[in-house]
């Protein structure tokens, strides 16, 4: 649906974006993850035809967006990182304003506004001035404005920055719902691992203008480790049980600590079932079995030597 090739943006001193390649398929939620100043917003601005790239191309449905932005703009909704609303107008008036800017039909607009207010959960607050809104409510309206003209592709630039967990969950669920129910294609930018992990099918990790890793969640985690870790809690650790595990060809490493057994197993092996079978054989009472996967946070640390957030 959308393809970015070798995108670069050079400001006077900084290379904000330096050779980014990425693509988005119809119906996906794609995450763009990176620390402050990674170049996420600059990339999104170029992708949405707001600023011209220094080099590279953005193609939407196989047509260059840089030369011919109209087609993309019709289908695209952008949720900017900064709240872009009239604070002295009400929520409804803001939607009215942007609807008119989008030259929407008067009758349709009324119904559409009701629908959007429903989606973002601001029906009760629609006639309040935006400046009286909480951070979370402003964020939701900021998203709502981008949904007015029924876009099929939406770019969201850190839509949950600086808000309470409740609003954040609401927004995350809304994003997921839009994707599922309306088949909206979404590019979601964040520096929160857990958000991207929860929402996205595929992820791009960006740092200092470069994409440093990309792929599905598992692909990325595989970068860090080819193994998975099992933590088995038992009522009593029987030697029989641990011996059988040790002898199993897939087990790379085994440690016992009080009543917990920790195993390292290659990623591709499905080992859950084996543990249960061995426990039954040896009459070991299992309290719990946990698979620990490395987090994206660990991946970022591994790739850059820096934490994602300071």
């Amino acid at each position, binding site marked *: 649906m959308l393809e970015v090739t070798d995108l670069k943006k050079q400001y006077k001193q900084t290379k904000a974006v330096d050779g980014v390649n990425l693509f988005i398929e119809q119906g996906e939620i794609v995450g763009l993850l990176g620390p402050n100043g990674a170049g996420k917003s600059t990339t999104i601005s170029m992708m*949405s*035809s*707001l600023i011209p790239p220094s080099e590279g191309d953005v193609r939407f449905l196989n047509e260059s967006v840089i030369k011919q932005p109209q087609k993309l*703009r*019709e289908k*695209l909704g*952008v949720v*900017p990182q*900064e*709240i*872009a*609303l*009239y604070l*002295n*107008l009400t929520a409804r*008036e803001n939607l*009215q*304003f*942007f*609807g*008119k*800017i*989008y*030259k929407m039909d008067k009758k349709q607009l009324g119904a559409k506004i009701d629908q959007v207010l429903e989606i973002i959960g601001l029906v009760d607050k629609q006639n309040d*001035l935006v400046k009286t809104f909480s951070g979370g409510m402003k964020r939701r309206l900021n998203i709502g*404005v981008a949904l007015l*003209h029924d876009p099929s592709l939406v770019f969201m630039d850190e839509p949950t920055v600086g808000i309470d967990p409740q609003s954040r969950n609401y927004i995350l669920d809304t994003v997921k719902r839009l994707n599922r129910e309306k088949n909206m294609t979404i590019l979601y930018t964040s520096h929160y691992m857990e958000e991207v992990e929860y929402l996205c099918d595929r992820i791009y990790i960006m740092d200092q203008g470069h994409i440093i890793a990309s792929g599905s969640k598992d692909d990325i985690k595989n970068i860090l480790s080819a193994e998975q870790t099992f933590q088995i809690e038992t009522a009593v650790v029987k030697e029989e049980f641990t011996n059988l595990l040790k002898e199993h060809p897939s087990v790379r490493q085994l440690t016992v600590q009080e009543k917990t057994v920790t195993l390292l197993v290659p990623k591709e092996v499905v080992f859950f079932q084996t543990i249960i079978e061995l426990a039954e054989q040896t009459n070991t009472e299992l309290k719990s079995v946990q698979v620990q996967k490395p987090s994206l946070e660990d991946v970022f640390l591994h790739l850059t030597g820096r934490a994602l957030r300071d």
Partner: protein
Amino acid sequence: MKGILYAQLKLLIRNPATFLIMTGICILFAFFIGSSSGTYQSYIPIYSEMEEKETEQVLSHLQQYGAQNYELVEKEVLEKEVREGSAEAGLFLFDDHYEIVIASKTGTFTLLEQNIQKAYGHYLQEKQLKQADNVNGAQLIKQLNEPMFTVETKTFFGEDSFIYDSKLQAIFGFAVFFVIYTIAFNVIHILVAKQEGIWDRIILSPSRKWEMYVGILCYAFFLGYIQVVIVFSFFRYALGVNFYDGFGNALLVLIPYVLAIVSLSVLIAGISKTTQTFNAIIPIVSVSFAMIGGSYWPIEIVTSKFMLALSKIDPVTYVMDALKAVTIYGEPISGALFPISILVLMSVVMMGVGINLMERRS
């Protein structure tokens, strides 16, 4: 464009105080400052060398025209009163001509002169008609075609006196000064929209950029124009201030000025990067333009070459010129063509440069 007008109107309705207070303060200032100086019920002392009966005839004609308060006095009294300013002007009546003596040309001078001319003319005509039996017709016609009397105007301050109407000076001055704020604080919405990211959303929409510019600027223009019309109309209709039959033309003259101020605001918006800078520059520009352009005091009393040179690039100078021309000096609109053209030229240039600056930055 409909969208932006919708937003601007909503914002005005939500917060009409700024506009109303600006208009109100403008009227108050113009009212108090305009009436604190200068006499309004003008008193005209008269010294006559005509016969008593004829003097009374002229006087009765004079009282017929205009609201001046006339009184017969001794020659010395008249001169003293005019010199000291307790009388706006003095009138000498002679058998074959009259003389008006003034200290300075005030606003009502033209009116006074007209009235005296009419009254004296009326009197002479009557006199001739009475004598007509004794004179043959041809002679009468000849006499009527030739000026029967001479008019002399003397001033104690020499030739370069100007007409000063303190009321109109205050109304014009404050109206053109305050409207700068009203316009600027609407043009600033371009900067606000850019700063708040609203402009980016507009760029991505089917609305075109020029629609936004036109929308915001038209709105600023109309609000500014409505304000000056309200102020002028208030003085004209509620207080009955004399615009010397030039009220309509004065309103016309304001159009290129309001346009020039819209352009000026665009230029300043183009120069200032942020709304904060814009907000800091506007008062400086408006106050100095008002001072230099003769909105606080008449430019005619300014003698500094430097200030006068500065006033040449100031739209306020030209609108004050044009306004005075079509009112106090009784000129038709064509008499103000020069300042009007300059204002139009300024509008075009400042608008062009301003929009260019704004577009270049983004």
